């Protein structure tokens, strides 16, 4: 059932956020430390383990894949609720600090990624199951 996949995702999400809060409390950061990252790692482990056991039929996978595919629309909704006005009103200090840090970071990213180029060039990217087969999900049920 599709809900099994969504429930698995939900459990990993909750557990990850909880552990992130716990970690933040322990080191006194007063915030969630890597909760989403921990949840992602939990989900990856759960998938590997359940695949091995044969507990991951296509239906269950769809329950997760749907939310992965909803990701871009959710991000668009997120962009639509940013405080763009405040950002623009911040004036030159905010603008310069932002542009400066973006430029510096961009250069460092480019530097690191260039250094590794030769080795990584041959690696093919994993095929996106959703983008590669647009006709299969939901309707082909």
């Amino acid at each position: 059932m599709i809900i099994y996949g969504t429930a698995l995702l939900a459990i990993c999400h909750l557990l990850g956020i909880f552990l992130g809060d716990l970690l933040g409390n322990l080191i006194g950061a007063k915030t969630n430390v890597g909760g989403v990252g921990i949840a992602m790692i939990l989900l990856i482990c759960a998938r590997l383990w359940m695949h091995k056991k044969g507990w991951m039929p296509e239906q269950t996978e769809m329950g997760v894949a749907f939310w992965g595919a909803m990701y871009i629309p959710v991000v668009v909704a997120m962009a639509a609720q940013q405080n763009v006005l405040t950002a623009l009103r911040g004036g030159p200090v905010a603008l310069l600090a932002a542009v400066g840090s973006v430029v510096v970071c961009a250069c460092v990213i480019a530097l690191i990624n260039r250094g590794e180029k030769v080795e990584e060039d041959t690696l093919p990217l994993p095929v996106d199951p959703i983008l590669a087969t647009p006709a299969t999900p939901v309707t082909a049920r």
Partner: protein
Amino acid sequence: MLELLEGTARHNGLVTAFALVGLVMLVSMKLSRHLTMGRVHGSAIAIVIGLGLAYWGGVQTGGTKGLADVSLFAGVGLMGGAMLRDFAIVATAFEVQVVEAKKAGMVGVVALLLGTLLPFVVGACVAYAFGYRDAVSITTIGAGAVTYIVGPVTGAAIGATSDVMALSIAAGLIKAILVMVGTPAAAKFLGLRTPRSAMVFGGLAGTVSGVSAGLAATDRRLVPYGALVATFHTGLGCLLGPSLLFFATRAIVG
């Protein structure tokens, strides 16, 4: 009749948001295909439209949550809120290739540390150049350049004034928007082609919203790798900002 329709939309906020975002995506995909011949990814256009709608919402209501403050579109706040955003990000982990992720482990950590330190130094220098001389203000603005969450968290912890806090949020917001909009255009310069490069990007560019939206608009397959690292970015910033970075700043400016 029109009032009734408005009531329907208002009472079904999240469903209205689904319809609205679907429409925005449709328009963006068409614009991408016909206006830019596919050179600008549809997702990037959709995000820019989203930001434009947020600006319009802010002007209309004077609120802080963009389009979500317009009562008709309040559901956008739920759809794009932290809960569903994190839920969808976690779901993308399903596509992560473990071997690839492991390969970038150490580089990811280095990128994370650099991604906190470099923006902080730049932000602090800008603050100093504009006449801020107290360690609290300089630290808060510097932390804002890390992400718009690290800024206010740090400011609140060390007792910054509200206008400095607003500045730090603004710096972080502009950074997130720049990353969202600029990443697809700069993808080639940044070398964003492999999972490993996406993880370096996630660690250095920081803001989860900026990284995830920027990567989504560049290459959807890179999102989980960048997001995996970027989610640790805010936590690390919140940890270092009010502690190590504040003490270091205070030691330098006195």
